[in-house]
């Protein structure tokens, strides 16, 4: 598993990435979208302890038309003392993946199943305007181990109307092959991520956040299972060519995927959140570019409206478009003198694509009248249609991601 980042997939990463993002949004309570002018939902009237405790459990399911299925149970919790300014949080998630995608079938392999476990641990201390956070994460699956450590500092300015953040995160990934000891085969990837953010309170009901992310990656990012069909120069290979057609047209050599050993990625994100009388609108725009010349834009909108005191519901829409990396080719060819393309990939997430997501969210406060958010039952459903514009095997994919969660706040 690799942490969710743009245009990066190790083994059918897209669904897992979607689950991660989804789970993150749910488990963190999607606080920004719940109302920028609201106080902490964990603060109960008449509460005698300074401690706020939050616990959540979620079960998410992913399925797509490329025969990938993921079940993701997870739990998370946080304890904080808002007066003292500290908090600790943690989470644990399991991904149970079953896949028979076209990428697997095209190499005459069978369906595989795999379990991934991941956990996070974090702490924050912010006794006054200046604060610091530490974060860590570990993800383990049979052929991939990833850990991350990092931290950030924040400072409130202008009477808390402006908050600045600087963060740094280091990630170490080790990729292997299932059933093969890491001592026999493994590749590593080091990642240094820098984050700078500014969050502004525009007025009593509106906030604006700007975030700059820069990530520097060094190491092997190629998937150790992905072999790239090569064709003779001049061979016509149509978009979406079937497995049988590719196998009949390709040359005998089918080399392992090969990617540049370094990559620099930058993203600029903006989030605008506005609380109306009985609803909340959140708009996100993210533009992305990297040294492989992949550029992307992602627009996300969520609208939540209150149905009484206990129910909050609303739609979600997302649009994403990207070009392919500069070495992207639908059909790589052998070069002069039996030479090979220096870089070659079959990773759809590195090719040109567009996708659109539509979904709906429902949150029901089950707590007592005085504190309806003491217990919150949530439902989410998102459907995504992806169009792959210059690929072999697959030209489109439809996926569904649904989840149910239960949160408790004391």
């Amino acid at each position, binding site marked *: 598993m690799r942490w969710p980042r743009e245009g990066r997939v190790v083994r059918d990463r897209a669904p897992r990435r979607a689950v991660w993002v989804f789970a993150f949004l749910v488990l963190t309570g999607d606080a920004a979208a719940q109302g920028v002018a609201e106080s902490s939902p964990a603060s109960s009237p008449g509460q005698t302890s300074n401690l706020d405790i939050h616990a959540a459990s979620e079960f998410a399911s992913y399925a797509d038309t490329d025969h990938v299925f993921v079940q993701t149970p997870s739990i998370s919790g946080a304890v904080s003392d808002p007066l003292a300014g500290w908090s600790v949080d943690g989470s644990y998630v399991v991904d149970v993946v079953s896949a028979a995608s076209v990428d697997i079938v095209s190499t005459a392999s069978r369906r595989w199943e795999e379990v991934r476990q991941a956990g996070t641990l974090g702490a924050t201390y912010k006794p006054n305007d200046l604060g610091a956070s530490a974060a860590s994460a570990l993800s383990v699956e049979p052929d991939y181990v990833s850990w991350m450590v990092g931290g950030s500092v924040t400072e409130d300015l202008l009477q808390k109307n402006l908050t600045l953040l600087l963060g740094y995160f280091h990630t170490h990934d080790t990729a292997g092959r299932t059933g093969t000891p890491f001592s026999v085969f493994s590749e590593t990837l080091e990642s240094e991520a*820098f984050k700078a953010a500014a969050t502004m309170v525009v007025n009593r009901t509106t906030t604006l956040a700007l975030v700059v992310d820069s990530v520097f990656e060094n190491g092997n990012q190629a998937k150790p299972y992905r*072999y790239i069909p090569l064709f003779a120069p001049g061979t016509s290979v149509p978009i979406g060519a079937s497995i049988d057609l590719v196998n009949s047209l390709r040359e005998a050599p*089918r080399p392992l995927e090969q990617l540049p050993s370094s990559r*620099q990625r930058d993203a600029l994100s903006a989030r605008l959140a506005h609380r109306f009388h009985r609803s909340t609108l959140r708009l996100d725009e993210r533009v992305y570019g990297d040294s492989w010349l992949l550029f992307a834009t992602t627009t996300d909108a969520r609208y939540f409206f209150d149905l009484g005191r206990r129910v909050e519901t609303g739609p979600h829409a997302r649009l994403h478009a990207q070009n392919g990396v500069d070495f992207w080719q639908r059909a790589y060819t052998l070069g002069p003198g039996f030479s090979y393309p220096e870089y070659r990939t079959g990773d759809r997430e590195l090719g040109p694509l567009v996708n659109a997501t539509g979904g709906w969210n429902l949150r029901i406060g089950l707590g007592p009248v005085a504190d309806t958010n003491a217990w919150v039952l949530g439902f989410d459903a998102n459907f995504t249609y992806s169009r792959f514009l210059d690929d072999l095997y697959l030209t489109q994919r439809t996926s569904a991601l649904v989840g149910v969660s239960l949160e408790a706040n004391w």
Partner: protein
Amino acid sequence: MKRGAAVAVLLSGGAAFGSLSCSVPPSDGTYTPAAFPDETTFSPVAELLSVRCGAIDCHGNTARNLRIYGSTGLRWLSSDQPFYPLCNTSAEDLQTYDSVVGLEPERMSVVVSGGDPALLTMVDKARGTAAHKGGQIWTAGDDSDVCLISWLQGQPNGGDCQSAVASAIPASPRNPLLCCFESNNPTSCQ
């Protein structure tokens, strides 16, 4: 406010750092030549691979990343059939060669330049040290392994290849395929 100013400077510096990183030249995606083992001495290795790995439910299948052509499995010419012609053709050996060297061309170049043959997934899978759907095929140091490794290292050992093939084919009753691997003129085999 001084702390705030410092954070603001760092923040703007971080943003500038991010924008600078975009100016790094991208990869050019050109072709890269690779150093490969000798093609002219590959035939005995191709014969070994065809009898050990080239069955139609193994690597004698066009869907496999590593395709192995030969008499007992995948034929190169659509007009050819299993065991007809009886022996591997030179075109089949060439296709198998292309497939073998083209599987991991960058690593193959390292091995040809004196690197450890175990860098190659193919070697690890055959030895059983790496996961392989077909299981362990041979053992490091046995005739089959020496046949492949010696060729990779530029010191082909036809004797080991021949004995490895012989041990893979039932000797009694005498298998006509043995003629292909023992004869200097396989086209005479029937």
